[in-house]
């Protein structure tokens, strides 16, 4: 095993932090969204469905470009933040975190929608009639009965965020310790013709991604809907 440089380790730390936070945030956001998509017959449902799936088809550079404009110092979000005495989000860890949440949204939502459809509304109605409030129902009925869906959603979100490149490059650049994630660092190494360094990180990511997917597919054979 070739030695990893301090810069490699720093990138690994940033990447893991980004993946873990993205996964945590997305599970919280995607659960109510997926429930709504699975069980509400509303005219706005199709539009929301399309919006959620948009990051699947959009070039990451397009997403990164608009996020750069929106979150940057002159964008609506960036300006609002600055007027509140905060800093804008371009070229910052918080910025790429927002980007990752949007970019990986379909990978959290779709497995959950599938799981919630499979569950149906009946167990939740029953639990409600037995006196369970909304959070109680989430933790005592939905979570245990849709465990597989949550595990798949979390794993895919984590793995997909790990492979994020274009959005981060557009919005975050390559600031060591802040926005320099593994995929960006590999690009930098390759640009600098340091193929040995690029290779050791690439191989590591390749093996990691493969192991994660094998784990997911063996855990949930029914899962065929979303492909990263």
């Amino acid at each position, binding site marked *: 095993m070739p030695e990893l440089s301090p810069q490699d380790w720093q990138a690994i730390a940033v990447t893991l932090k980004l993946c873990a936070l993205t996964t945590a945030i997305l599970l919280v956001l995607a659960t109510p969204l997926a429930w709504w998509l699975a069980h509400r017959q509303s005219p706005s449902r199709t539009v929301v469905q399309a919006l959620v799936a948009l990051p699947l088809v959009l070039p990451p550079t397009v997403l990164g470009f608009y996020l750069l404009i929106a979150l940057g110092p002159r964008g609506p979000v960036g300006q609002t933040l600055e007027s509140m005495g905060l800093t804008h989000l371009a070229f910052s860890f918080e910025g790429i975190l927002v980007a990752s949440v949007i970019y990986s949204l379909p990978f959290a939502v779709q497995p959950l929608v599938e799981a919630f459809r499979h569950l149906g509304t009946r167990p939740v109605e029953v639990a409600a*009639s*037995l006196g369970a409030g909304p959070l109680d129902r989430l933790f005592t009925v939905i979570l245990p*009965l849709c465990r597989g869906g949550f595990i798949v959603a979390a794993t895919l979100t984590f793995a997909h965020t790990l492979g994020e490149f274009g959005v981060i490059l557009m919005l975050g650049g390559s600031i060591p310790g802040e926005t320099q994630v593994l995929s960006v660092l590999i690009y930098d190494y390759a640009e600098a013709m340091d193929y040995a360094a690029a290779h050791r990180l690439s191989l590591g990511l390749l093996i990691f991604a493969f192991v994660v997917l094998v784990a997911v597919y063996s855990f949930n054979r029914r899962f065929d809907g979303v492909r990263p």
Partner: protein
Amino acid sequence: MTLQVRARVQRGDFSLTINDTLPSNGITALFGRSGCGKTTLLRIIAGLEKLRDAEVSFNGEVWQAGRRRMPINRRRLGLVFQESSLLPHLSVEANLMYGYRRTTEGQRRLHPETVRPLLALDDLLQQPVHTLSGGQRQRVALGRALLTSPQLMLLDEPLSALDTTAKREILPFLSGLSTTTGVPMLLVTHSAREVEQLADQVAFMEQGRIERVEPLREALTRPESPLFSDEGPATVLQGDLRETGEGQWQFVTPGGNGRPSVVFQVSGQSSHHTSLHRLRILASDVSLALTQPQGISIRNMMPVRVERIEQSDEHRCTISCRLADGQLLLSRITLQSVVELGLAPGDSVVALVKSAALME
């Protein structure tokens, strides 16, 4: 004690217009054909239908007013659905206790040690949910709902997914459950048999409306009642089941007021059915004879007095006969027979009951 509902639903061809007050004591059957809106009404009462504009109140407590809905988990009602609704990741015991644990101590009136024997649940506690039969599942579901000490139980066709054997098993448990526990029940059903065996009063639904709410006793006196549209008129007698020998059962009506009780020989019963107190006899299973016939397979021959003769259609008449104990027994015979026998109100005749069973 009343349940007030006002609601309007329009979905394609389906429409529902309700502005009624339902009794909330004993068992009220919501009876109608499939598609008449009875399940939708039940879901509105439960708060499971998200309507923009409806009013539901129970004994003065507002459950819905316009858009504002009291969350279902605060309504304190028990729900039992047609298909098994047990939580599959929990044991039978955990299912039973799910609602009990979420009921505050001050509101607990029904406890596991009371409810378990009522529904014979003790033997099931340790079994995994997926090994239970359909009838057993519904018993657990009933017990689980009762253990929340609900103000009202909503039963949505709880027997219709069960086969005949399972129905026979569970009906005796349901009968009398409302009286024993003091919990009023609303029973959605399309089965006249279930209504006649269980209900205290009936709300007749047709095409999204409640046409009439009346005590079962009154509904049974109307020959044109929707209860009779499938199998014709039927008599429901009150009484008790008694064992007279090995596998020999009698249904004995109470009599009283100087009147004797009437005894029917009934078949296919067991001690499990002694909680049933209603004997249902189809009018088409009752023939009349002027004198007691000899050498006949029919075991139930009752002396009766003809009270009323009504022509039901072109060929058939429905005869109301008074049994010795004072209860009415309906007989449906052809017009020709009425003429040939020369039947008239006041005549003393013999009613031949072809089949008498508490349940089929």
